[in-house]
Structure formats: C-alpha cells, structure tokens
C-alpha cells in the first residue's frame, strides 16, 4: 500500500470531483507507447481507396462486410427500418446520385459501390454533436465514436450526407449472430459507424475489411506518407469522392 495507495487515491479523487475536466491519472500513467510517439512526430491521415473494378470482379461478394460486422458485433436485424450498417454495398446511383450523366462506363455504374464512413476531413457529424461523443481524432483523421457518452440524439445521423451512421433502435445483442468477445456490443439508443478499425490499427493490424478482401479492392493507408499504397493508387488512377461539392473532404476514394 503506502505511497502507491495514497497517490492513487488522491489523484483519483480529484478526477472524480472534476468530472467535466477529464483529467487522467498522471501518477500512474503508463509509459508512452511506440504508436503514441509516432503520432507526436507527425500526424497521419488515414484513407481508404476502393477499386470499384476489382470490387465488381466478384459478383455478390460480401467478404468485407461480413468480416467487419463479425469483428464489430454489428447486429443483423433483417429489416430496413432498424438496420445497422458499418460497411455495405449499394447502387452506384445511390452512392453518387449527383452524377446524373447518362452514358458513364456501365461496368462502373451498374455494379454496386462499397459504402462506409468517409472519415471526412471536415466532418459535419462531429460539428453537430452536442456532447463530443463523436469527434475527429487529430493524430490520424479517424472520426471516432464514444459509445459511453452518446445520448442518442441522432443529430449526427441527420447531418451526415452519406448515410454512414446507424442508430441502435433496439437492443442489438439478440440480433448478433456470433459475438466477438474482444469487441463490445453497443446498447440500444446510441449511434455507431465504421471506425476504420481503430482498435486493430492500434494493434498494428489492417482494417478487417481490407484484410478480408481477397481481390485487393480495398487499399488502406496513410495519405501523409508519400510511399504509402493509397498515395500510389491515387496517383496512378483517376478517383472520385462522394458529394465533393459539400466540402466535407471524404477520405474514402473510389477508383473508376
């Protein structure tokens, strides 16, 4: 006990009294992790590149969706109303519905587009959140969710121009087919969405969808790193982003 105990109690007590302050336990703070150090050296900007052609090569493939939903305990309600989606396939016209011109390359427009949170550089969803339950992580550009703090007002869902956010209309647990105990489920009444697998990233793994895609249609990486795969892919091919006119600067790119 001794010093250890007193130190902990004192600081912890202060923490609790200053609830809003969000102070941390400095006395017991862990040593800096390697990843944290890297973050301080220079910020990163994670991005995803979806190669639509490659994606279309396997018709009806849902590997990425399944991997993601399995990993994140995303429930399957099997009805449109209560549906929760982190990553999903939708028609090109829905995904890019301001692209009205008729005679685009059919292989692109007739196939589905893979949709997920865009992790915008200028996200409207975090701007509207009244509790800072969703915010953009400065160090790597991931738009985060704090499910402990979300009050379920759904303002972010309303503000997102891409339909990337889902709300837990009901208790998700009974609808999770196979639970991954490593990842929490959510509770009813909070909003959720793709987090670029930030937990996996922290462990040095790739996002689940990227790992699951056998076609290599999904490329993930740091845009700040000139050597990264994403940078190269974007340099080599022409890419589009969803609703660029809104100025949200999505970090999900589609190679056409």
């Amino acid at each position, binding site marked *: 006990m001794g010093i250890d105990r007193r130190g902990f109690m004192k600081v912890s007590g202060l923490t609790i009294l200053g609830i809003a302050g969000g102070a941390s336990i400095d006395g017991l703070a862990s040593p800096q992790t390697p990843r944290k150090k890297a973050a301080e050296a220079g910020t990163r900007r994670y991005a995803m590149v979806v190669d639509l052609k490659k994606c279309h090569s396997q018709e009806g493939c849902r590997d990425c969706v399944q991997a993601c939903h399995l990993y994140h305990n995303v429930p399957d309600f099997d009805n449109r109303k209560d549906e929760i989606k982190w990553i999903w396939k939708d028609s090109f016209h829905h995904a890019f519905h301001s692209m009205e011109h008729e005679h685009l390359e059919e292989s692109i427009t007739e196939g589905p587009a893979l949709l997920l949170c865009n992790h915008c550089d200028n996200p409207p969803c975090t701007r*509207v959140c009244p*509790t800072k339950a969703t915010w953009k992580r400065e160090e790597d550009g991931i738009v985060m969710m704090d499910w402990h703090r979300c009050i379920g*007002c*759904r*303002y972010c869902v309303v503000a997102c*121009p891409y*339909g990337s956010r889902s709300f837990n209309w009901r208790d998700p647990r009974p609808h999770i087919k196979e639970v991954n105990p490593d990842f929490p489920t959510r509770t009813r009444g909070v*909003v959720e969405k793709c987090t670029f697998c930030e937990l996996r990233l922290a462990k040095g793994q790739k996002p689940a969808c990227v790992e699951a895609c056998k076609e290599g249609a999904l490329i993930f990486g740091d845009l700040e790193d000139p050597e990264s795969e994403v940078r190269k892919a974007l340099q080599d091919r022409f890419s589009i982003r969803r609703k660029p006119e809104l100025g949200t600067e999505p970090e999900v790119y589609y190679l056409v």
Partner: protein
Amino acid sequence: MIENALRGSKRYWTWVFFLLAVIFVGFLFYLKQYHEGLGITGLSRDVTWGFYIAQLTFLVGVAASAVMVVLPYYLHNYKAFGKITILGEFLAISSVIMCMLFVVVDIGQPSRMFNLFLHPSPNSMLFWDTVVLSGYLILNIVISIVTLGAERKGIAPPGWIRPVIVFSIPWAVSIHTVTAFLYAGLGARPFWMTAILAPRFLASAFAAGPALLILLVLLMRKITKFHVGDEPIKKLTVIVTYAMIINVFFVLMEFFTAFYSAMPEHVAHFKYMYFGLDGNANLVPWMWTSVVLSIFALVMLIVPKFRYNFKLLPVTCVAVFIGLWIDKGIGLIITGFVPSVLGEVVSYKPTFPEIMITIAIYAVGALLVTVFYKVALTVRGEVTYDRVRPLETKAVGTK
C-alpha cells in the same frame, strides 16, 4: 398561489383527471419505449427524426410567440394586453416544457441527458438550443411568478423585473432562431438549407401562437368569469393576420427558388410533399389540407368584416393553427429526410405508441396551461371577487 390549483369545481377536476389519465397511458408507452428502444416508433435509419422533433419545432414557435403580447405591452405600453401578458407567459412556459419533454423522449439514452451540460459543445446547435430553451423557461417562470405575485398582493412589481422582461423579448426570438439553425446549417439536407428558415419559423410561430392564445382566451370567456375584452383579441387577430401573410409569402419564395432553379435536390422534396415521389404520396393529403386551411384563413383574416367577427374568429384561428401545425409538425421535418441522402424515398408513419406518447406530452402541456391559468384566473378573481356591483351607496350607513 399554487394552492388555487388544488381547489376547483367538479368540471375542473374531471378535466385534470382526464389529462392525468392520458398522461399515465402515454407514460406506460414511454416505459415500453424506454425498455425496448426507439424501435417501437416509426423512425428508421433513413428518417431519423420524426414526429417528436417536429412537435418540438412547432412548440418552440408557440413558446416564442409570447413575445407578441409581451412586446407591445412592455415596450409600447399597449395597455390592452395587460390582462393577457401573463397568459402568454404561462403558455410559453407550458410550451417550453413540452419542447423539453419531446427532446427527452426522442433521445436514445435519456439517462445520459446531463452529458449536454457535462460536456458542453458550443459547436452544436442542439447544445445552444438546450441553452436558449432552458434560459427562456427560467426567464418566463421568474417573470410570471414575480408579476403575478405582485398583482396578487396588490403592489407594484419590483423594479428589477422590467429589464428581465425586456431581456426576454430578444431571447424569445432567439429560441426559434436557434431551433431553425438546428436544421438550416446541414449540407446533407438541402430542403432545410435556406436562409429564410428562421424568418419563416418566426412568421409561422407568430401566427400559430397568438391564434392559440385567442382560442384560449375565447374559451375562458365562455367557461369562466374571466373576460378579457374585445380590444386585445382584435389586436392579436391583426398580429395573426400579418404573420400569416408573411409566412405564406415566405413559403411561396421557397417554391420559387426550388422550382425556378430546377435543381433536382431542391425540387425533389417539394415534389414529395405536394405531389408524391416515386409513387410515395403519404404527405400529399396532409399538405393540401394545410394549403386549403391557410388560404381559407388568409381570406378570413384579410377581409375586415370576417376578421373581427367573433363568431367566425375561432374557426379562423383553428384553421391557422392546424394549417401551420401540419406544415411544421408534419411536413417540414419529415420532408427533410425524403428523399434520403442516398436519393431513396423511404416513407415514415408514426406508430401508435409514438402517437400516444406525443398525445401524452400535449396532455402535460394542457395540464400545465390549465393549472397555470387556474392560478392566474383565481388570483385575478380574488382581486375582483364577489364584487357584485360598484357601490354608489358608500356614504350611507356610516354615522
């Protein structure tokens, strides 16, 4: 003063218990919603806000409209409103409380609602809306308790209350402006992306709120001894008239901008509202009812002969109120989500539990209005109670 609400006639108690019963039933449904989640409502991934938030929007307007009696009375010394300012303030208090209840029932994690204050986020309009609504509630509670209390004691209200009242006037405007900002700044929802959303909200509020106040005053003339007199009612009617004209004018401007520009994102919503989109026309009958009621009300209000006809006035006010309620309480919020951000048309219909919860909150409002008006009227009554006739015979009988 509040004791007066605990004494009343059989009719009063019947009404109170009826409302309590409605509230109780609604509360049971809310418990169900609390335990099962908002899934029991008609809301969905595509239409995330619906009936609850629409009522919030509408009622913020009713609350803000108290300024239409407070302002002429306190800033322009318009004495005829002296008797009804307190009624306007009480209506505002009840409306704000209803607004807050609608927010509470709409959020998924009500037990975390204090996060709004524990993690204040000035970048969020919802945060500001909470601030202005709470502030408005406190302002009106203080103002009405102090002024009515002074009236009951037969003394002048303390001097410090006047600046508070004056302060409440711009605050009233702010609550509806900030509520409009909830919607107006969202790139995702082109239907709401219009600079005149706040002015339009205010115009419709200043029509619907006073219309409701006229109805309440006329009702009290019928069932209580409280008689307001014709002049304030006429003046309120004029306010409704102008506000209604401006509101319709603003709506027409929206139509012009959408249809003349012919930008699909803007046109689609209006099409959905008034003509149906992709075979989905569930709002169409409502919206045309609103159009018909509004045109009818405009005619009735603009022609002076009809405007000051106290027999027709209730009908006109009902038309104004329902017309605007459909416009704001059904059309405005739902249409923002149809078509969705992905261009899909997904219909929304409130479910039975959702409607029952909504009715229960309206019943809370009705109960508050009843109780507050009972207190105000009894206090007024005390001041003139049992005064059968003015006394000419005063001098006689004293030696």
